[in-house]
């Protein structure tokens, strides 16, 4: 800590601060380390060792078994998440564009009504939504889940774009309108090119939300159409047979890796989405 020599009270308090911070880092990392270690152990190894003991023999059998069990559901999650994220983001962008630059009587009130959707406890819509999906013939399909995620993701996606677009100066759009540019031309030529950051925030937020969803998945899907979170929960909480903790942990890692990867690669946007969605929502 030589570079901090300029400050008078270096010694004890700074050491204490670093100790707390590093201690917390270790504690936060423990579950991830334990998951990884356990997933590479053999069942016998798990029985004799402890959570943080190094595998006596590193084996990928847990990962192989886990992948064989969950790969179909992993694919389901992709089939649900990709379209749902893209559609809800596209609609959110258009909604936000209208709500910030093409306001009309009642549009503000609509925004207020929409905002409540950010807080809506989904338990209050589960039953009617399942009746509706049944009527539409979409019960227990990944398409049905895409539809549900688009509908209940709209509140956040619209909020993101609307709040981003209100800070763009009106003059820009007014000038384009005077030049005769229409609704979609302005959107495509002027608004969209300056939206990259908020598109990233929205895509990442929606990806995390939808990939990690469990409630909609467990209610609106069954058997072959289940997303990975539901499959993981089924795997971990079956009471039949011998518990294979290495398989459980490998499956949990598989379910968690996509969002972890996105977080590591695009953490900046992830945090911005969290705080934007949180503070304003």
């Amino acid at each position, binding site marked *: 800590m030589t570079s*901090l020599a300029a400050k008078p009270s270096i010694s004890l308090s700074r050491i204490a*601060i670093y100790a*707390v911070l590093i201690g*917390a*880092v270790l504690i*936060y990392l423990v*579950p991830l380390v*334990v998951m990884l270690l356990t997933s590479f152990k053999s069942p016998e190894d798990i*029985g004799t060792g*402890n*959570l*943080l003991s190094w595998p006596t023999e590193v084996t990928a059998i847990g990962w192989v078994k886990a992948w064989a069990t969950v790969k179909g559901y992993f694919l389901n999650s992709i089939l649900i998440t990709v379209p749902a994220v893209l559609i809800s983001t596209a*609609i959110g962008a*258009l909604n936000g*564009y209208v709500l910030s630059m*093409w306001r*009309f009587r009642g*549009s503000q009130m*609509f925004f207020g*009504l*929409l905002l*409540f*959707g950010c*807080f809506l*406890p989904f*338990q*209050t*819509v*589960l*039953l*009617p*939504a399942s009746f509706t999906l049944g009527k539409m013939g979409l019960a227990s399909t990944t398409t049905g889940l895409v539809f549900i995620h688009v509908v209940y993701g*709209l509140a956040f996606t*619209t909020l993101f774009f609307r709040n981003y677009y209100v800070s763009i100066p009106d003059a820009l759009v007014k000038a*384009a309108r*005077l*030049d*005769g540019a229409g*609704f*979609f031309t302005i959107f495509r030529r002027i608004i969209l090119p300056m939206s990259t950051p908020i598109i990233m925030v929205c895509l990442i937020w929606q990806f*995390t939300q939808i*990939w*990690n969803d*469990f*409630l909609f998945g467990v209610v609106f899907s069954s058997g072959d159409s289940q997303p990975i*979170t539901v499959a*993981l929960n089924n795997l971990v*909480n079956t009471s039949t047979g011998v518990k294979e*903790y290495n398989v*459980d*942990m490998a*499956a*949990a890692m598989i*379910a*968690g890796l996509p969002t*972890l990867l996105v977080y590591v690669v695009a953490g900046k946007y992830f945090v911005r989405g*969290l*705080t934007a969605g*949180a*503070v304003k929502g």
Partner: protein
Amino acid sequence: MSSVAVFSKASPFDALQRWLPKLVLAPSMFIVLVGFYGYILWTFVLSFTNSTFLPTYKFVGLAQYARLFDNDRWWVASKNLAVFGGMFIGISLVVGVLLAVFLDQRIRREGFIRTVYLYPMALSMIVTGTAWKWLLNPGMGLDKLLRDWGWEGFRLDWLIDPDRVVYCLVIAAVWQASGFIMAMFLAGLRGVDQSIIRAAQIDGASMPKIYWKVVLPSLRPVFFSSVMILAHIAIKSFDLVAAMTAGGPGYSSDLPAMFMYSFTFSRGQMGMGSASAILMLGAILAILVPYLYSELRTKRND
């Protein structure tokens, strides 16, 4: 783009342009009115019927709410929510604020440390629950680890102890969300005027005192937002319970969201399930309305 259109105000192009924004917004307006408010109303109606496995529209007044209040499991779930919510919010705030304040002291490798604190937030509660279920496994998890490390008398069997199982949920939830609170407060701290701190320092105040008396009170809005978000997470907590305890042992770790799910979808008690969903909505509104009210009031004062 030609500038001709400006002069011919009544052209069909212009008429279309006037309607386009409304047309674009129309599907979403429909979805919000039907899928949000219509469905809430529908659930509200169902809560006054004696629906079981299928919806029937025979009205029984407040009978489902009465049954709910007579149901021991509902009270356990509500009490658990109070304990879980209170501890989860309190501990997450303390941990989050502490880490944020410490991280704000020109720490080396701050970016890395921040990344570590926040990564659990990227995980599904199902993954979190699975991991912590293993960590808290009596006999094989931390229980054994600490004994192996020489703490002979250590016992950690909360996961199978009906009186303590709810603390397991608290531990996992705090692990997941406290980094997020840290991020919110750190963002707030970065916005605090440094000259205030320097002035207080010149006055001879100690750093802990400056934070406690000057800096943190200026972050009241962040504090309220955090409480709001954490309370919201607590009330909606369903996946964590499903993955970690499935409500057990017995129903000792049930939460209202879990109660609603199992009565509505497994036990064929649609009427009572709807009633419990409406009460959950009431709980959300009870924290949301005062929050929005105070937000709007401060905005008007600005």
